[in-house]
């Protein structure tokens, strides 16, 4: 499944070209170019402050680019609003589990179901068999089938992370972006999450930001190393680990 080889134009799902963003003169991302292919699982690593989270923010429209272009399926997204980008097929998981604590797991997933997204659509939305089946299917995948009627607030930290991944999966995005999906998880939970990730990449591209190198090794196909807002190195995990520049700024620590 990992396409490593010559990049064909039509295989490119997401293209960042010459992207720069500056906050009061500080360039958090500096002339960055990055290409993600369809069906690829890409891990972005790098030291703190390298601009990893900012890159995700730029793609999903949370932060506006200062210069450069971001094209998703040949559509320029830099001028679109967040919800429009989501509707194009980009899902984003935040670093801290971002779920609706006052609602149940079922309701969390239902809200994320991509129907009835307008005010009146939501008013007339019915939980049809189709919706219920889809929710069941996702809940099963994220190990929360037994907890459908549990309030999200009382889930464990790891379960919250899974729930948020599930909320994205139910939208069936073509590109899924996960910001540190295993942060704060126990070893057992990490193993399950790796298994989950390896299943959900079927048919979609995934960008993962991660610090845990063991976890990265267990999932990564292709790794991009960011440093000071620029790509320092890019390639297969084993090559990256041997790269002297990478060892110096990041892995050597």
């Amino acid at each position, binding site marked *: 499944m990992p396409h490593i080889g010559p990049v064909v134009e039509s295989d490119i799902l997401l293209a960042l070209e010459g992207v720069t963003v500056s906050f009061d003169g500080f360039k958090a991302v500096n002339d960055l170019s990055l290409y993600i292919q369809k069906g690829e699982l890409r891990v972005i690593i790098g030291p703190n402050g390298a601009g990893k989270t900012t890159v995700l923010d730029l793609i*999903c429209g*949370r932060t506006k680019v200062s210069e450069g272009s971001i094209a998703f399926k040949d559509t320029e997204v830099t001028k679109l*609003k*967040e*919800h429009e980008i*989501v*509707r194009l097929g980009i*899902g*984003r998981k*935040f670093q801290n589990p*971002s*779920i*609706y*604590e*006052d*609602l*149940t797991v079922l*309701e969390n997933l*239902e*809200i*994320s179901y*991509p129907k*009835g*997204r*307008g*005010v009146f659509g*939501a*008013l*007339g*939305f019915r939980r049809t068999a189709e919706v219920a089946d889809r929710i069941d299917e996702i809940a099963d995948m994220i190990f929360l089938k037994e907890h459908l009627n549990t*309030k999200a*607030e009382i889930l464990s930290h790891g379960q919250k992370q899974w729930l*948020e991944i599930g*909320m994205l999966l139910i*939208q069936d995005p073509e590109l899924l972006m996960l910001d540190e999906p295993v942060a704060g998880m126990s070893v057992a939970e990490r193993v399950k999450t790796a298994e989950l990730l390896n299943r959900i990449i079927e048919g979609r591209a995934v960008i993962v930001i991660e610090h845990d190198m063991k976890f990265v090794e267990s999932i990564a196909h292709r790794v991009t190393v960011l440093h000071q807002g620029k790509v320092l190195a890019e390639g297969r995990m084993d090559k990256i680990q041997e790269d002297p520049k990478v060892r110096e700024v990041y892995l050597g620590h």
Partner: protein
Amino acid sequence: MTNAKLRSLASNWLGFVLLSALLILVFPAVLDDFRLNLVGKYLSFGFVVLGLVLCWGYTGILSLGQGIFFGLGGYCIAMFLKLEASTPENTAIQSTPGIPDFMDWNQLTELPFFWEPFHSFAFTVIAIMAVPAAVAFILAYAMFKRRVGGVYFAIITQAVTAVLTILIIGQQGYTGGINGITDLRTLLGWDIRTDEAHNILYFICVALLLVCILLGRFVLKSKLGRILVAIRDKEERVRFSGYDVANFKVFVFCVAAALAGVGGAMFTLQVGFMSPTIIGIVPSIEMVIFCALGGRLSLIGAVLGALIVNAAKTTFSEMFPELWLFAMGGLFIGVTLFFPRGLAGLVDDYVVPFLSKVFLGDKKTPPPEPAVTKLAE
């Protein structure tokens, strides 16, 4: 019927049935005409608090300016009634007969253009909801599309309230100024000043209020209701789930405004006048207190809050006029600190478990249901 069925039926409808019985049967039976009319007046604030439950309790949009919308609804019907009362025969002694008396006193010689449509009853009925909703739309659209929220939004609603009140007071010839629009007599020829009319208006008010409660429940029970809770808790997540959050906030704010407008109209009809003192900053804050005390997550509780605080205000503000405002402020702080879910929260935590123990034979007190997902009331 199984216990579970009974319980879900009870939790869905018991509050509504009890409130209906209280308003339709108990109050008319035990209260004299004067007090029943007072209750009717209190209930007109019930419409406002229903809106506050939707937009403050569930969506987290605190508006300190619901008085504006209450006032706009109230002024709409007052203008209609005033025009009906200002026939050329009734106003023959004026220098310009046929226009409202206060206009004549302010040297106006013809009816201002924006008064003209209020000759029509159908227009007036629509305007009672449409005018507040339109003002709310402009305000909310401008703020929420720019992602102004939280305390900033509350401050802006407060400022708009001040502006509108000053405008009404300043434009005496067009609005009746500080005195408001007074001496309202008939509605389509029906004298609304008699005890009998007051009684009928009371029942109309109750019926409308119950309909509005059902409407509110319909909204809260739909997926829209859960999206509102989601917006309150994690606005950004909702946005990144593909929703245009601002549209939802605008919608709920407009609904709250339209409800307040209906309340204002019922107030004018039952009290017989509308004036800026009823819609200014202090009344707007009082409306939030009714809602907080009754329970901002409970439609029924909030209506009871409006009744209780208003009744207390009538009783105590006569006895201790200086102390009343302090008591009201203290009440608000106390409720916010100790019972954030208001009276309805206390009922959920203590009365409901007790009742289910007695009637449904629960062995142990079930843990209080989380207030927020209890969308029932």
